[in-house]
């Protein structure tokens, strides 16, 4: 049981209602609202799943099933930044394993871990569909292309 209260502001609730109104069945807005919840609460713990379920008249089990199905929802707290390195075929052929090793060493974490200072969560992910710029990675909302160790260092240095 968590004691943290997770609720949207009045403004956010209005946005939830607007989103629900866009779909023939309001439940269509579940994924967008879960994105909102993650933005608002940092991640989506069980308490947030229950809260969102209530907004939709859905069972918490249904929301849990959805949250755990998709890779972009975090059930555990994540770092202030998420660095996701593509490990699929074109990036692999362009040296993605070396990039991943380099980032692991620089950050001192393994895949799916967060640095002690809460700065960065590291992921190794499937194709992000930017294979023409392999090896590449996603840093939060941004795609970073044509990586080499020096470029990776510059990108990591910008993350606070």
């Amino acid at each position, binding site marked *: 049981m968590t004691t943290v209260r997770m609720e949207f502001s009045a403004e956010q609730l209005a946005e939830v209602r607007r989103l629900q109104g*866009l*779909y*023939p*069945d309001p*439940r*269509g*807005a*579940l*994924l*967008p609202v*879960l*994105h909102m919840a993650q933005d608002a609460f940092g991640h989506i713990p069980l308490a947030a799943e229950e809260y969102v379920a209530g907004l*939709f008249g*859905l069972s918490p089990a*249904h929301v849990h*099933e*959805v949250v755990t*199905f*998709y*890779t*972009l*929802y975090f059930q555990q707290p994540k770092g202030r930044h998420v660095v996701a390195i593509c*490990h*699929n*075929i*074109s990036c*692999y*052929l362009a040296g*993605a*394993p070396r990039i*991943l*090793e380099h980032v692991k060493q620089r950050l001192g974490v*393994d*895949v*799916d871990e967060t640095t002690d200072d809460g700065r960065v969560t590291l*992921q*190794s*992910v*499937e*194709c*992000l*569909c*930017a*294979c*023409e*710029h*392999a090896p590449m990675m*996603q840093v939060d*909302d*941004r*795609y970073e292309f044509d990586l080499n160790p020096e470029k990776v260092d510059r990108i990591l240095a910008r993350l606070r």
Partner: protein
Amino acid sequence: MTEKILTRNFDRADAHTLGAYRETGGYTGWEKARTMEPAGITEEVKKANLRGLGGAGFPTGMKWSFVPKNHTGPVYLVINADEGEPGTFKDRYLLERDPHALIDGMLIAARAVRCEKAFVYIRGEYVEPYRRFAAAVKEAYEAGLLGDGLDIVVHRGAGAYICGEETGLISSLEGKKGWPKVKPPFPAIKGAFGMPTIVNNVETIAHVPHIVNRGAAWFAGLGTKTMGGTRIYSVSGRVKRPGIYEESVGITLRQLIDRAGGVSGNGRLKGVVPGGSSAPILRADEIDVTMDVDGLRNAGTMAGSAGVIVMDETVSIPEALMVVARFYAHESCGQCTPCRESTGWIYKMSERILSGHGRKEDLDTILDVAKRGAGTTICAFYDGAVGPYISYIEKFRDEFEALVTDGAGTRARATPAPVAR
């Protein structure tokens, strides 16, 4: 050089704006289509031999004609912008650089199938393409193009390859995990929210304004006998100039690799995956094939999403198998037993082979499991997965045997990265 149609504005810095799109003839397709009968639009698209460019290659006009004529409730148009097939990146360009072409095509398609509400499902990782496209939708509303007969909802996915499968996408759009649905009923009969639904790929719909404007015969003439038009090839891997190339669907694979500057690495081709990672690999001596749906099917592979992944002689096919097997194991939605179990076990076996601990019988076991499972599942995901499993082993068996013949002790070139599951 083939005329650029879909990519003609890609070099303009302002290509994503309504002003730039209109300057180059944008929305004149829609202006013409709104004077046409819906059935006439569908007929034109049929005659153009436009085929779905997301992967399945199904004739677009025929798909539209499946919406029941006597249906009186809503019909939905859903654009599949859940681009995720490894080696494919064309829709990212279309969403970012020419979003109004998609809206233009959607207006026309919506008229053809009598749809008043459309959804665009964009993969969750595509944040910038989402913003660009959402901004274009806003412009179109402000210009009165939308909101008067058609509404567009832009929907973000949340990370799951299976949602690119049209019924998995529909489940996801309905607020569920992205499990594919049993067909029939096909979406055109009973799709999103229980209503007739047409699911089309971004690039497919971006072609529609040009077909209406310049005619079916013109479009059909750009391609082969059974598939019209150009398409955007995503070329990556070991080529000198990876990127997007808009070419006739009648181009050969050899010509396309040349367009991309030829083979890099050691300069000598080993194999090419012609249509995204699910397409069976072709050997260097099999690339004089046309890239249309039927040409590649006759060559034992598929056009798929036109993601061309080039491998030079220095690439280890057992390593490549491990990488793609890891992908299918991670992305299997888990609904059907043959897919869930086989993708997981085949990935483990591919790692074992690569680490030098493979057994001689592993190769035949993988082939056996792959062949038995194909066609036994709800969707085409597993059929796609077996494409690489079977073709990599059958066409490059000697490379695999070199790793398993002496049993334990052989080490592969690279240590695979651990998979996050």
